[in-house]
């Protein structure tokens, strides 16, 4: 799994490359949490353009990050997830709490 982050205003933007499952969930969680703790950000955008696979372990870790961001009054958005990832999102009902956008700029403008 390859993770990169940048801060734009009060938004932490993380790009996720690879596969998010039980094996990689901890690495993902630690990376995002570090970004949230070390930067004065409110919102979180996850660029999933290069996330090739995700299962329900990803849902658990996303809900955990949502709770953290929600506590500071922020929102979580995902960008450009593929069809497989999108189906797992749909089944778990995560679109009720995390909105999806087709580009980072659209997500930034809407937050």
């Amino acid at each position: 799994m390859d993770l990169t982050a940048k801060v734009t205003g009060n938004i932490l933007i993380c790009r996720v490359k690879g596969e998010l499952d039980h094996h990689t969930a901890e690495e993902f969680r630690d990376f995002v949490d570090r970004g949230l703790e070390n930067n004065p950000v409110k919102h979180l955008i996850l660029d999933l353009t290069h996330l090739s696979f995700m299962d329900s372990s990803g849902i658990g870790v996303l809900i955990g990050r949502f709770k953290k961001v929600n506590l500071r009054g922020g929102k979580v958005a995902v960008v450009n997830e593929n069809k497989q990832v999108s189906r797992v999102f749909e089944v778990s009902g995560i679109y009720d709490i995390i909105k999806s956008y087709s580009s980072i700029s659209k997500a930034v403008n809407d937050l």
Partner: protein
Amino acid sequence: MNVKNFMELRIPSKSQNEAFARVATAAFASQLDPTIEELADIKTAVSEAVTNSIIHGYEDCEGIIIIKCRMDEHGVEIEVRDEGKGIEDVEQARQPLYTSKPELERSGMGFTVMETFMDEVEVHSEKGKGTVVIMRKKFASLAKGQGVSGNEG
């Protein structure tokens, strides 16, 4: 089931084997020429079952997970078996959002994902002995006629 081909994998319950298990199973199933979406469904369902065996079946100790895949003229049957601690209440475990490990940020959606992405999911478990998950999926490309006969018309 009129088994045309089969495979069996034995792997230790290490999390780094989750990706191997789902990719290997999907590669085997690809012989039947499923759609990309059907293959993604199989990968996701296998990933859920294997993860359950690792996290819940074997918890902190290491054991063996056996994955069997059989194919017939309609599709595949995939079996994921562990000899771990078993599930006390299978009905409860299959409920959406139920998890015995909320502290690990588990979503409790594993069985729901398996049920959504496969046509049939059977769970057999005995406390102290282990769990077997059997999942079946028919492929749309094989639905016409009696399967892979080669020439059409």
